[in-house]
């Protein structure tokens, strides 16, 4: 439930509304980066994604590590990616 899955910011979609497109395991969807607005998010940053929100900025190593750990979860990982794939945040 508190699953955080790493994604890389590929595009700032709407800066005013804090929306960015992230790539999670090859699936690209729009998420909210409002919780990290103070830190500032730029293209290329890695973030921990939870229910359509960037929760924390992470480095590449942490991203690799976390992705590996989440993939180890098997079905939970596929469910998360499938759910992420279904999102239609505006």
């Amino acid at each position, binding site marked *: 439930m508190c699953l955080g899955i790493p994604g890389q910011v590929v595009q700032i979609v709407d800066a005013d509304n804090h929306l960015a497109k992230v790539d999670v395991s090859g699936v690209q969807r729009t998420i*909210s980066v409002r*919780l990290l607005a103070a830190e500032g998010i730029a293209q290329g940053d890695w973030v921990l994604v939870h229910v359509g929100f960037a929760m924390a900025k992470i480095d590449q190593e942490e991203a690799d*590590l976390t992705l590996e750990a989440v993939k180890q979860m098997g079905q939970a990982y596929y469910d998360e990616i499938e759910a992420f794939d279904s999102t239609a945040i505006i």
Partner: protein
Amino acid sequence: MKFVDEFRDPAAGRALVAAITELARDDEFKFMEVCGGHTHTIYRHGLEHILPKNIELIHGPGCPVCVIPMGRVDDAMWLAEQPDVIFTTFGDMMRVPGSRGSLLEAKARGADVRFIYSPLDALRVAIDNPDKQVIYFAVGFETTAPSTAVTLVRAKELGVKNFTVFCNHVTIVPPIKAILDSPDLRLDGFLGPGHVSTVVGNRPYRFVPEVYGKPIVVAGFEPLDILASVHMLLAQIRDGRCEVENQYGRVVKDEGNPQALALLAEVFELRPHFEWRGLGFISQSALKLNDDYAEFDAEIRYRMPGLRVADPKACQCGEVLKGVIKPWECKVFGTACTPETPIGTCMVSPEGACAAYYNFGRLHRETALLVGQPTTR
């Protein structure tokens, strides 16, 4: 992937286990991992078998789906079955059983229940369906609550009128406190939750060492994170230290995420009580929408059955004290109200009527009922 390999390095794991074994000596230790994610890692990697036998990991209450009481699930189903309602929820919650089955079964019976990935998806459903009422079933600890907060702020900005939230967000500190207050469980320390702490930081756990004299280490989710955290707990105990430490510093900052905390404060306020499955009622352990966001509160817009939910009226201590009813005639006796998680004063003191009856009389009565004897006592 070099870093990943380092975190799975068997040699590093063996070295840590050796160091843990040395620090533990022959003493017995019980550490609770608060977070369900840690429980997963522990089982997934068989850590309970790798650790020396005198170190026991106790699984804590940190699974937000597991702690939602049946009454709230019933309320969710009631909401889902109202006319012209689209009820949105995380997939996890679809299968949680209430007393009349699950949301999945409600959907099969014709209710419009939709599973969504994000609360912002629920808001989207509302915008796309202006002639329907869209309700979002919000569950989760402080990891998830900020996402609901942002969604509500956005709903207000956009002036969305057909969107409400059935709020079941819970907070991590009160159950830890309830567990520490329980006389049944002797714990030597805690593995603190990783992702909750990205939001709340490390400061809220200070009461654990300062008030209860137990160490706590906020831990990551890799097997070596867990082992390293157990080692840090033992090192604290052997050094005579007792403090909050952060093993997961590569993600968790001491101050947490101030922006997320500010958003929580803007939208939510603490509930006086909230019922937890298995833990009973815990005061100030959950969030509700504050007055500024009352228009989005499903609990205000709909008159739900609300059975066994944070209702102080359920406690009949007054009647018990006055001799109007016997302890077992109180609706919450022995279910929501127990000595570990009392609702009323009669269950708090060991000399209270309810506590005494709970501890000593209850089994006699149940036996008597079983064999058909009169049960006036």
